[in-house]
C-alpha cells in the first residue's frame, strides 16, 4: 500500500517534470543534435548555449530589462495598493463596495484590448520603449490584484490593533509603518509575488510597448530563427534561465501563499 502511494507520487512528479527536463535536456545540446536525433540525454554535452546568453548583450539585456520593469512594477503596485487596501478594509464610504468590485473589472478584458491605446499614448508622450512604460502598463492589472489580496490580509487584523496603537500614543503613519506593515508582512509578500509573477510572464503588452532599449527576454525568445538559422538549443537555455526567477521567488513565499489561500483571497 505504502509502496503504491509512493509509486503514484513518483509517476506524477515524473509526469510534471517531463517538459522541464526536456527543456534542460535541449539546452545542453547543439541545435544539430536536437533536430537530427532523438536522445534522452545530451550526446555531445555543451555549455555553449549558456555562454552565448551570458556574453551576448542582445540576450542578457533581455533579462535585465525584464527584471527592471518587473521590479519597478512590483514596487509601484504594492506601494499604491497598501493605502488603498487599508481604506477599503477600515472605512465605510459612499460606494465603497462598488468601487472595490470595479477594481476587478480591470482584469476582465484581455491585455490585447489595451495594447493599442497604450501604444498610441506612450508614443505620444515619449514613454515608448522605456522600462517605466511597461511597468505602468502592468499596474493596470496588478494594482487591483494587490488591493484585493492586501485587503483580505488587512481585514484579518482586528481594528482594535489600530486603536491600541493610538491609545499608546502612536500617530497614524507611525502605526502604519512600524506596526501595521510588519503585522501583514505575509500579505505584502503574497501580493508582491503575484505582481511579480504577472509582470514576469506577461508578453503582449511588454512586446508592444518596447522595441530595443527595453525589450524583455520573453520577446527575445519569440525570435526562433536568426541569420545563423534555427537556434533551438539557445532558446531552450534561455527558457531554462527564465524559469529560475519565478522558482526562486515562489520558494520564499510558499508558506505565505498557503495562508493567503486560507483567507480566501489568493
Amino acid at each position, binding site marked *: 500500500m505504502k509502496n503504491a502511494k509512493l509509486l503514484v507520487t513518483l509517476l506524477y512528479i515524473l509526469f510534471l517534470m517531463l517538459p522541464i527536463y526536456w527543456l534542460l535536456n535541449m539546452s545542453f545540446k547543439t541545435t544539430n543534435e536536437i533536430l537530427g536525433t532523438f536522445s534522452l540525454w545530451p550526446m555531445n554535452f555543451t555549455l555553449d548555449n549558456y555562454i552565448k546568453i551570458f556574453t551576448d548583450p542582445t540576450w542578457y539585456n533581455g533579462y535585465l530589462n525584464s527584471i527592471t520593469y518587473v521590479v519597478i512594477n512590483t514596487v509601484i503596485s504594492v506601494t499604491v495598493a497598501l493605502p488603498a487596501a487599508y481604506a477599503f478594509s477600515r472605512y465605510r464610504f459612499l460606494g465603497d463596495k462598488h468601487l472595490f468590485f470595479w477594481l476587478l473589472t480591470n482584469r476582465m478584458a484581455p491585455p490585447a484590448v489595451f495594447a493599442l491605446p497604450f501604444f498610441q499614448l506612450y508614443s505620444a508622450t515619449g514613454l515608448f520603449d522605456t522600462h517605466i512604460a511597461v511597468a505602468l502598463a502592468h499596474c493596470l492589472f496588478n494594482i487591483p490584484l494587490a488591493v484585493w489580496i492586501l485587503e483580505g490580509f488587512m481585514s484579518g487584523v*482586528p481594528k*482594535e*490593533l489600530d*486603536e*491600541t496603537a*493610538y*491609545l*499608546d*500614543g*502612536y*500617530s497614524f503613519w507611525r502605526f502604519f509603518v512600524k*506596526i501595521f506593515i*510588519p*503585522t501583514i*508582512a505575509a500579505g505584502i509578500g503574497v501580493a508582491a509575488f503575484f505582481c511579480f509573477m504577472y509582470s514576469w510572464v506577461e508578453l503582449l503588452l511588454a512586446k508592444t510597448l518596447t522595441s530595443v532599449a527595453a525589450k524583455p527576454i520573453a520577446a527575445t525568445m519569440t525570435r526562433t530563427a536568426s541569420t545563423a538559422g534555427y537556434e533551438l538549443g539557445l532558446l531552450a537555455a534561455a527558457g531554462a534561465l527564465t524559469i529560475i526567477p519565478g522558482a526562486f521567488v515562489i520558494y520564499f513565499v510558499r508558506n505565505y501563499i498557503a495562508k493567503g489561500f486560507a483567507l480566501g483571497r489568493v
Partner: protein
Amino acid sequence: MAEIKLRQVRHSYLRDHRKEEDWALKELNAVWQDGTAYALLGPSGCGKTTLLNIISGLITPTEGRVLFDDRDVTDTPTGERHIAQVFQFPVVYDTMTVYDNLAFPLRNRGMDSARVSARVGEISRMLDLDSMLSQKAYGLTADGKQKISLGRGLVREDVNIIMFDEPLTVIDPHLKWQLRSKLKELHQRVGVTMIYVTHDQTEALTFADQVVVIYEGTVVQVGTPVELFEKPQHTFVGHFIGSPGMNLLPCSAADGATVFSGIPVQTTNAHKFKTNGRRMELGIRPEFIRFDNSGFEVEIVKVDDLGRYQLVETRRAENTIKMILAEGTSIPAERPRIAFDPKHTWLYADGWAVS
C-alpha cells in the same frame, strides 16, 4: 487621574439620524468620579462599547462634550488623553516579544529603561507572564495574548482611566476568577478609575463600586450593586439583575392604589403616581415574596430545590410569579396564599419606576 464628565453626549453611526432609534447612544449626562471602579452592564449591542470609545476618543460623539477635570477634550486625539483600554479580543503586536509588548506604552512616553523594566517586571509577576517574557507574542494561546493585552492596559501608572471592554470573554472560567480578583485588588491598591464593560451581571456586581446599567442606548440606572437589587429604577434592571429576575406583573393604578388581578397591592411608590392609562407594571423580586395566609391565593406550578434555596413557581390567572424560599421552608400543600413585601414592591409606568 481625572474626573470625567460627559455632557449631553449622543452618538449615531448613521449620517441620517432623525429617528430616535438611529442613535446608538441616546443623550447621556454622566460623571465618572476619580478612583471609582465602575461596571457598564447591559446586553450585547446596547451601546456600551460606543460609550467607551467616546471616552477614549476613538469615536467623536455626534453631539455633546467630553470633559476631563473640566477641560474639554472632545477633539483631543486619543494618544493625548492618557487612557488605557483593553479590548474584548486580544490585541498584541505579533512581531514583538512579550516583554516589548508590555514595555511598548511606557517606552512610547519616553520612560527610561530601568523604570520600564521595573514596571514590566511588576505587571508580568502579577499576571504570571514571567516565564514567557522573551518569547515572541506570535503563536501564544488566546489566554496568553489576552493577558498581555491586560498587562499593557495596566502597565502605565499615569493614566486617567483604565477601560476594560469585556476583557475576560476569551479566558477560561478558572482563570477568569483569578484575573478578576487581581483587577479588583489592583484597583484597591492603585486607586485609578476603572470602567469595566460586561454583559455578565456576576462580573459587574463583584467588580464594581458603581454599576451603570445601559439598555437600548439609554443609561437606565447608576447605583451600587445593592441599590440595583433593592431599588431597580427600570424594569430592565429588575429582570436583568438577579437570578431569576424580578417578577413583572401587569396591573392598574389610580389614586395611589395599585390593583393586580383584582387584588389591591401595597407598593413603595404608588402614592407618587399621578396620571393613568399607560402600561403599568408591578415589580417584585422573588426574594421578597413569602407564603402568608393573609395574602392572595395562587396555584403552585413547580418547586425546584436548588440546595441553598428553593425556587417556587406559582401562577395566578395568566401570570407566573416566582419566589425564592430559604432551604427547609415548608410549602403549604393546599390553597397556598402568598404576600408581597410592600417595601420591595415597585410600580412601573412604561418601564420606569414611578417617582
